[in-house]
């Protein structure tokens, strides 16, 4: 093929003038990420009494970052196409919980072999996504409120099935390998994460599906007038989100070695934050997988890096501090995204003169 096809996946979005801005956004995020990393490398690495290097600058720590960012990262990957179509899916975190305990139940109570249980879990995830999809496309209900309902429903089912207390544990070693060991040098689940990222990236940037998602996000009516199958494409996006949430559920279970009903609580918020931070517009139409990955990395490095700082370690507040900074970062990113528009509006108009309103004659 010609050279154009070898361009990186961003190329689809990196074209044209206004897209330079988007690319800038991703570059900016990359600088932030590098700065973060360098800072934590310097401030968060130390040598302990036995002369062993500990803290941020160790390979173990780097792998830990990767290991811990897989689940939220997967949800962020699931949400990127959704948000690009100008939709939202609040239910992915709950679905992660539901899939995790169903997986545990299928294996533990159902006595199914692990691979079969995995396959069924993926099917359940897709089915749950299909429930969202049907309500959103066939009944034309707003995604926000539909997925708010399923957010409650999925978590509720998970709690009901486990009666709030059952935790499935004692998974076999070869299953835990997925979440706790390394394969070919990397944490095993990282390979799954990378594969899903590649798959979604290809779908979004290299196929007509991604084109359709973007078009629907930018101009839903325009897409209909161009003969694109708007409903089917939208449905695909939500089913895919369900499927990826199920994958995240399996990885979560394998990492912790247990399946509980509260698995993934609040993950949807971090995933949405990562996606928006990565430059995907909440209004739809623009966004890249590369940006999402950078957004996920920025949040993950922040969280783990903070945990290595002596100050934060003394306070034992890494979680909170990273959450606070993530929220603040999102606010700054949002404001920055509209600033040019606001500034251009503030330029003086030509015809503003003194207001003289004559009184209403009787």
């Amino acid at each position, binding site marked *: 093929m010609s050279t154009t096809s070898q361009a990186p996946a961003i*190329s689809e979005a990196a074209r*044209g*003038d206004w897209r330079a801005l988007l690319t800038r956004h991703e570059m900016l995020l990359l600088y932030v990420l590098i700065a973060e990393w360098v800072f934590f490398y310097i401030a968060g690495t130390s040598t302990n009494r036995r002369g062993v290097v500990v803290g941020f600058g160790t390979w173990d720590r780097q792998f830990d970052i990767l290991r811990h960012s897989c689940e939220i990262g997967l949800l962020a990957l699931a949400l990127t196409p959704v948000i690009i179509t100008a939709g939202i899916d609040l239910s992915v975190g709950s679905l992660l919980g539901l899939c995790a305990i169903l997986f545990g139940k299928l294996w533990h109570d159902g006595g199914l072999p692990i691979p079969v249980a995995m396959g069924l879990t993926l099917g359940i995830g897709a089915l749950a996504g299909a429930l969202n999809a049907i309500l959103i496309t066939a009944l034309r209900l707003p995604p926000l409120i539909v997925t708010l309902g399923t957010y409650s429903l999925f978590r509720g089912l998970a709690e009901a099935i486990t009666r709030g207390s059952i935790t499935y544990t004692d998974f076999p070693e070869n299953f835990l390998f997925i979440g706790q060991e390394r394969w070919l040098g990397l944490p095993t689940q990282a390979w799954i994460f990378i594969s899903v990222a590649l798959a979604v990236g290809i779908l979004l940037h290299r196929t*007509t599906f991604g084109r359709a998602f973007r078009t629907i996000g*930018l101009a839903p009516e*325009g897409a209909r007038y*161009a003969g694109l199958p708007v409903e089917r494409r939208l449905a695909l996006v939500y089913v895919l989100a369900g499927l990826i949430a199920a994958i995240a559920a399996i990885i979560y279970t394998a990492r912790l070695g247990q399946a509980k009903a509260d698995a993934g609580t609040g993950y949807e918020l971090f995933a949405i934050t990562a996606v928006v931070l990565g430059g995907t517009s909440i209004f739809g139409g623009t966004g890249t997988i590369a940006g999402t990955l950078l957004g996920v990395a920025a949040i993950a490095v922040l969280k783990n890096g903070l945990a290595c700082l002596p100050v934060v370690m003394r306070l034992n507040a890494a979680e909170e501090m990273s959450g606070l900074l993530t929220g603040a970062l999102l606010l700054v990113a949002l404001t920055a995204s509209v600033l040019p528009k606001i500034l251009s509006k503030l330029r003086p108009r030509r015809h503003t003169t003194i207001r003289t*309103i004559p009184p*209403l004659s009787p």
Partner: protein
Amino acid sequence: MSSPLLALRQVVKNYGGVRALRGVDFDLRAGEVHALLGENGAGKSTLIKIVTGAHAPDGGTITIEGQLIAELTPAVARTLGIACIYQQPALFPDLTVAENLALRLDATTAHARVDWTARRTYATALLARIGADISPDAEVRYLSMPEQQLVEIACVLGSGARIVIMDEPTASLTQKEQHLLYAVVHDLRKNGVGVIYISHRLEEIFALADRVTVLRDGQSVGTQELRDINETGLIRLMVGREVAQVFPAAESAPGAPVLSLLGVGCNASGVHDVSFEVRAGEIFGLGGLVGAGRTELARILFGLTPADYGQIKLAGETLQLSSPQQAVSHGIAYVPEDRRRHGVVLELALEQNITMAIHRRLFPTTWLRFGAERALALDYIRALAIKCAGPDAPGGSLSGGNQQKVALARWLATRPKLLILDEPTQGVDVGAKTEIHKIIRRLADEGLAVILISSDLPEVIGMSDRIGVMAHGTLRAILPGGSDPRTVMAAALGTAA
């Protein structure tokens, strides 16, 4: 002589690069009904938006009772007693009739108490005064179009406005309600209110108005006392220029019928019993006024609003069109009227816009082939002479005419049998207009069947081989190409036939 109620001097308004108003003068006296006439796109709506404060003018002055108004916002317009009855009722559909009236009439102070009993009584009285039989507690969304229009009229009546604008108020009214409206207009005039009355129905204008101002191409071409002018004179003023433009001539004779409609109608979109044929190589013009049902007919043919009855045949095959995908797969292409919302996705690159309707053919495996896409886009950019920074420039960076060419390219790429063009030259500058005309003619000469919907009278007359004139959702007449514009206008206005 006392100063007029409302005086506009040299009002200019630009939308992007398009000059909607190029220096309009307009006077309204107290106690007169002043008709505003003009073809579609002549600038009537823009003028209204400026008088109601919805849009700020780019130049010129607005004087009300001798007072120069520096900045006219909707709120200021209200306090000055300017009220408008829009073509599409500007009501709040979720609220009741009484609530709508209250919002429109009492919204001046936020802490004010809304006295519902009084308001309901007042609403009842107002509705009774115009003779409308509508409950003040009815939710507006459940009212029919004419009923909503009557509520609008009641709002305006109740506001005690001194300047009342009526934008085609009778468009959706039945005979009975029209008479109610006429009575209201007479009533207003008697009370010294100035009424700006916009309508395409000439008989209405002659029955109601005292004076008439005709707008053409964003300029006023004259204000006349109505008793000094007759129908023919008015039509001549509206049409104005003789057809001075040169349109490309057909080089080949039309071939076999491609599309034939037999008694097609759709109740939801108000199209009734339309029958005609379009042949290969023929440009079939669809003339008529806005709201005559032309776009609605096109939407039926494109599967957006499926027909309820009648037969649609394409190249001998009877079609059941229920989605745009079906229409596209049968070789029907539709370049919509609203270019910005439906035609070109402004944020997407040209090449992506051009290939949008042929994903399946160009990317059979769904894998995007950027090289093939660019080559195809470049072909069309050259063939249609699209002026752009490159195939990767976003659609929004192009001028209106070039955007239209992109929309055209998208549909030509589908290799259609039938091409429906809806107002293809609206908001397009003169040079691009001529180019688009040439392209359309060339396509027809290559054997494409073309339906050309246009409100630009010279265009539809000059370009078409035959002209179907629509009014009130039906086909009124089929005239030969090059007909006298006055005949076409008369058919569209419904005065003849």
